[in-house]
Structures are given as structure tokens and as C-alpha cells.
């Protein structure tokens, strides 16, 4: 990406923040971010229960509206009663950041070709968070079979690994938002 602003970090952070605000003054992107939050939050929470999610979506004898509510709304709405505060905050942080990142990515893609978007655009963060699974306090995650292959069977180890991945995911996405904000700021500067 040849059009990155080369300036001191403080200037780049301010430019990135301006780019961020430019995206979210458009309410359509706020709505896209909100949908992204529901999508990514659900993805993490349901990652441990793929079979059950499939059952809810395809077989549970309720209306389609209730099925969608059960998958995308109920787990996030009651996240602080279902999980402990640390877990719930980790999942919420990841979901909000992923939602914002997705909206910014779409904003950029509407104005630039796919080749011009930053290389680190949040995919790695999403993979990390899904691997971490939604249930880091349960002594399990979808990492369990993989970890067991390497002889790591301690519940404490898996929980620590899951927690670490969850927070690493959020850090990666923060970096992605920063880079996208810079790109938006650069695009706006060129359009002036």
C-alpha cells in the first residue's frame, strides 16, 4: 500500500481517528457495524456448539424469527449473566471491534479496489477469537482436541490459551481498524 501517511505515530493516530469518525458519521455504517457485532459475537459464542446451532436453525420447532433470535440475539443480550465478567467483556470487546472493522472494510471496499485494502484487515483476529471459543472458563474450547494431540490436557492450560487468543484477537482487530482509519483519512485527503 503505497499511499500510507508517513508521519509520527501521534499524527497517524489522529488521522486514523478522523478516518474512523468519517465512516461512522454515516448511519448506514453504524447499522452495518451493529449487524457485524451480532454476527461475530454469535460466531464466537456458538463456536463450541456447532451441532446445537444447526439444530436450532434447522430443526427446532419454532418460527424462523425465534430461531434467528436464539442464535443472534439471546446469547449476546444476556452475556453478563451467562458468563463471568472477564469472559463477557472479552467477547463483547471482540464483537464490537469486529463489527466496527467490518463496517470500515465495507466503506473502503466501496471506494477502493480489493487490492488496496490493508493486508491485516481483521481475518487473523477472527480466526483467533473463534479458536478461543466462547467458553474460556469451562475448561474446554474447540482447541481441546488440537491441544490434546500435543499432550496438553490440562483445563487450566486450555483456559489460559483461550483467554490469550481472545485478547490477541482483539489486539489484531484494533490494529486493523487503525490501518483502515488511516486509509480512509488518506482517501479523504486525496478527494479534497
Amino acid at each position, binding site marked *: 500500500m503505497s499511499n500510507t501517511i508517513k508521519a509520527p505515530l501521534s499524527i497517524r493516530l489522529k488521522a486514523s481517528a478522523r478516518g474512523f469518525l468519517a465512516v461512522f458519521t454515516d448511519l448506514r455504517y453504524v447499522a452495518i457495524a451493529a449487524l457485524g457485532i451480532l454476527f461475530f459475537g454469535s460466531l464466537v459464542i456458538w463456536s463450541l456448539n456447532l451441532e446445537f446451532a444447526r439444530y436450532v436453525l434447522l430443526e427446532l420447532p419454532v418460527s424462523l424469527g425465534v430461531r434467528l433470535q436464539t442464535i443472534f440475539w439471546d446469547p449476546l443480550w444476556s452475556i453478563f449473566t451467562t458468563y463471568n465478567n472477564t469472559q463477557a467483556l472479552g467477547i463483547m470487546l471482540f464483537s464490537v471491534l469486529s463489527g466496527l472493522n467490518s463496517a470500515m472494510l465495507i466503506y473502503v471496499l466501496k471506494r477502493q479496489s480489493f487490492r488496496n485494502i490493508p493486508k491485516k484487515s481483521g481475518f487473523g483476529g477472527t480466526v483467533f477469537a473463534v479458536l478461543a471459543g466462547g467458553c474460556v472458563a*469451562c475448561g474446554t474450547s474447540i482447541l481441546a482436541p488440537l491441544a490434546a494431540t500435543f499432550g496438553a490436557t490440562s483445563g487450566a492450560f486450555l483456559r489460559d490459551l483461550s483467554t490469550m487468543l481472545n485478547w490477541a484477537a482483539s489486539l489484531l482487530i484494533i490494529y486493523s481498524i487503525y490501518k483502515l482509519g488511516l486509509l480512509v483519512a488518506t482517501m479523504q485527503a486525496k478527494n479534497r
Partner: protein
Amino acid sequence: MNKAFIWIAIVLGGLFGLFMLTAPTTEEAARNNTPSVDTSSPLDLATENAAPKQVDESTKTKLFIGSSTAPVTLVEYGDFKCPACGQFHQVIGQELRQKYIDTGQLKIEFRNFPFIGPDSGRAARGTYCAHNQGGFQAYHDAVYDYMWDTYYASGNYASEFEDILTTDLLIEIAGDSVADQDKLRSCIDSDDVDSIINDDVALAQWAGVTGTPGFTFDGQKINGPLSIATLETLINTKL
């Protein structure tokens, strides 16, 4: 612009497809997702990568929270040392009791899945020992309440890996929930109920439950806690 949206739709669709298609079968889960078993546990729990034994659920001793005649059953796999189980008991479990269990619509069948430490196994023994004296539910509530009030409510999760629940403490916690405390003590210190607990663990493994709290409802496996709204939706489909 349209191409970009098509690519995003393809990626999201792919993620969703992966989400739906990669779930292992129940048998694969039973064989591969063997939980973390603490080998210092007093119980002879199933070893890693071994196929769990077959258990006849119809003849197995069952531990119920609520009336055994309630029409809907939620099976819970729990470890008394697990903080998430404690939170489930304190928050969602209490809501279920008020709305469904106390009204005779739902029963929770509790199965032990003691994998955190030696005292997990000791506390698990206590469930069947208390059941033999008609005091399972009171014992279950008392042990979860003790761990929550003393450790987890204040965020002291490190205690999960300390050997806290000694036989003496379990007797003290059980208090009046059992009529004969000496009988409870000798039962917890013996291996009298270990085969039933191993049946619980085998059933968890066959169900594909990989941690606690884990659940099965109408044949569906659920790992980790569910929101009360989701549980209500499930239960209401059976009422």
C-alpha cells in the same frame, strides 16, 4: 463495489457453511474430545483417547433437581469446582427453578463430570452418598453455594485448582442435608459410588460433552452455559 459485496457475501457464507458442517459426530466427539482428566483424582476416570464404556441410562441411578415426574428433562454435567458451573447454579439455575422446576414442568438430571482436581471427585462421591440418604439436592446446592460464596463470587478463580473440598469440609457443608453424617463420611472416603460416577463420565463422553457445565436436551449436546432465553425457548417447545 458490487464485486466487493459479492466477495464479502461469499466469505460470510463460507464461514457460516463451515460453522454448520464441521461439527463432529457424537461418536467422534466421544472418542476424540476426551476431557482433561486429573490423574490424581481419587476416581478411576476414563483415560484419554479410550472409547468410553456403554452405559444403560434406563437402569442407572439418577440425581434429580426437581420432581422426577416433571415432563421435561435437562441433563447437566457439572464439576463442583468449576466456576462456570457455580455461576450457572447461582443465576440461570435459580431462574429455571422459579419458572419451571418449582412449577413441576422441568427437572434437571445432574451428572458428575469431575475433572478439575482430586476434590472434584470427592465432591462428586458426595452427590450419590447424599442421594442414598435422600439429601442430594440440598447437598448439591450447599456445595455450589459454598464454592461461590467463599471463592468465585469475589473473582478468586485460582482456588479452582487448590484441593479445598476435603471430606471434613464436605461433611460440614452438607450439614443437615443428610441425616447420618458418619455414613456420609465413610461413603465419601470409600469407592462405593465410583462406578456410578464413571457411568456419568462415560455418558458425558458419548454425548460429546467436553467441559463443564455441559448439557444435553432432547438428544442435543450443549457445551458451556446457555442464556436463560435460549433455555426457555428449548423448554417451551416441549411443554
